[in-house]
């Protein structure tokens, strides 16, 4: 027997609330295989294809191309025999449906427009500014060699910038900046400890997840999702490791390694784009001792790992003071340090 299964508007970034349906690639009655492209959506200048989560038949299309749809709301209904995915659409709680999507998705980018590229924060000669807008180049990506660090036409012409890449970086940066901006007003505090540096990233992720799980009072989510900031060719990527403390150490280690590698190339599995409850930023790989503490929206904590000496690292914890006081914060960091030192 077939079950009705709604394919919903996915949440593709932490600030995304709605997405625009661009086009359907299927019509009612089509037989689809798991992984076939069902439709394309657009948000924050990013286009993405949404694939069939399982084999089945298209039952109905619930929106017209051009419609703006809230995340979690159904876009189409498919009939599937795959019981594990099956869901009775009679239930109103469609938000509860989580599409298990393990395909690696390559995000497509809309062509850059002049309006997106204009910015006031760099000095450039007028011609360079107008040319950069025309070419879709972000002037912040250009090294200035002119007097008073002004970008000249020479600088612009010699810069090897891929406009699509620049636009992608800008969109990505805007997403992260918006998130940080949203949480800037939150009362927060940071603590630092120096620890022995002989721990792996996977160990840290696991230990931090366990510490957080032991403190349900700090949680505004039922799961623990550890986001790891990774420098990708498009800028910062934030893959989320969900409940990493439930995975075997070797499995997590392999997952961190493969995800990091994929993220560097700008690919993060769709399922790993959401669900972060805390964030880890490791600046020690750049030989930095510390960086500005970050707190993303809907997250109570974040960790920054800095370079100490050859054998030491600095771990700093930032907490939302609405959820814990200074003493709690200190205990939390203490517990983390104890946990990774033990390993």
């Amino acid at each position, binding site marked *: 027997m077939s079950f009705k299964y709604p394919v919903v508007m996915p949440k593709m970034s932490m600030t995304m609330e709605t997405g625009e349906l661009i086009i359907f690639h299927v019509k009612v009655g089509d037989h689809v295989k798991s992984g076939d492209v069902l439709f394309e959506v657009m948000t924050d200048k990013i286009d993405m294809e949404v694939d069939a989560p399982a084999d089945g038949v298209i039952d109905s299309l619930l929106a017209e191309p051009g419609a703006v749809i809230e995340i979690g709301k159904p876009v189409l209904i498919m009939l599937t025999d795959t019981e594990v995915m099956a869901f009775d659409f009679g239930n109103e709680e469609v938000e509860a449906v989580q599409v298990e999507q393990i395909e690696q998705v390559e995000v497509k980018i809309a062509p850059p427009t002049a309006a997106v590229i204009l910015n006031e924060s760099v000095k450039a*000669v*007028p*011609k*360079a*500014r*107008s040319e950069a807008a025309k070419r879709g180049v972000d002037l912040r990506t250009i090294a200035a060699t*002119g*007097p008073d660090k002004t970008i*000249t*036409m*020479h600088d612009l012409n010699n810069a090897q910038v891929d406009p699509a890449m620049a636009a992608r970086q800008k969109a990505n940066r805007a997403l992260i900046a918006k998130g940080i901006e949203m949480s800037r007003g939150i009362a927060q505090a940071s603590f630092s400890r120096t620890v022995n540096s002989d721990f792996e990233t996977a160990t840290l992720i696991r230990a931090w997840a366990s510490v957080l799980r032991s403190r349900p009072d700090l949680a505004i989510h039922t799961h623990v999702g550890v986001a790891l900031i990774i420098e990708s060719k498009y800028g910062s990527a934030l893959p989320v490791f969900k409940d990493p403390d439930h995975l075997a150490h070797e499995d997590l280690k392999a997952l961190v390694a493969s995800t990091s590698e994929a993220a560097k190339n700008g690919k993060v599995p769709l399922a790993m784009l959401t669900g972060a409850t805390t964030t880890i930023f490791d600046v020690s790989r750049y030989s930095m001792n510390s960086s500005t503490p970050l707190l993303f929206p809907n997250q109570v904590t974040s960790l920054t790992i800095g370079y100490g000496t050859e054998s030491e690292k600095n771990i700093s914890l930032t907490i939302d003071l609405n959820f814990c006081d200074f003493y709690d914060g200190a205990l939390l960091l203490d517990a983390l340090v104890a946990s990774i030192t033990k390993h």
Partner: protein
Amino acid sequence: MSERMLTMAEAIREAMCIAFDERPEVFLLGEDVGIYGGAFGVSADMYHRYGAERVLDTPIAELGIVGAAVGAALSGMRPIVEIQFSDFTAQAMDQIANQAAKIHFMLGGALHVPMVLRTPQGSGTGAAAQHSQNLEPWFASVPGLKVVVPSNPADAKGLLLSSIDDPNPVIFLEHKLLYKIPGREPVPEGSTRIPLGVSKVVREGKDLTIVATGIMVNKAWEVCEKLSAEGISITLIDPRTISPLDMQPVFESVDKTGRLLVVQEGPAHAGFINEVIAQMAGSASFGSLIAPIKRLAGMNIPIPYAPQLEKAAVPQIEDIEIAAREIVKNWR
């Protein structure tokens, strides 16, 4: 037709004589323009050629001279006034700015003031602060006055004949140091005219646009020659009339070169050349600029008497050369 190389004084005299011959209502008046032949020898023998009725020696009374000319112009004559030094126009400013410039407007166009006021200006003669000023912005800022600043004999002739033809007042500012210098171009024979309000592209290049007025056109020319040997090619533009001002060639040139250097002799503060910068900054060609606009102008001081200081107070060839080279080298 032979190619005649005249000095600016000769070219101006020739234009006046042509106008005298063509129109009986044209006459010249001023201090020492008659028997003496003009303080800088511009009118020379005109007194003897045309007689005391058409070449009038006046008392030392600038307000009276210009007032008489305005009255004559209103009653059908075409006076050419010579004020010995442009500094002395300060004495005559009520007649120039309040009467000559405004009568046509205030009487609804019923009357005209076809007067030309010629006057030598500028520094470089060791005549100190009250005989060396460049007062271009004084006149250029008065609506109702047209202001001509010739940089060479051929232009001076054609522009002066157009100025005499003009039905309303024209201020004709002649640089003293140019009077005795032959131009680079021959002066055409006969009754030829150059329209007012048309800038001249003196030479064309691709690396830099220089806009200069009066004697600074000549200094900039030297720089263009010198730098072309270094591979820097420069477009030199002479507005010729600073009011009205023809900016179109400047825009078109900056669209090609992307760099603009402006040069004037008068003080930088509130100077005429600032108008060129303002119009460029507000134009569609602003987006063509690949370098900040550079201004060279006189210092904001009275012209000193000491020759070394007098020279240092206004842009010289070396100053223009350094500025031009820097713009091109620093802004690529």
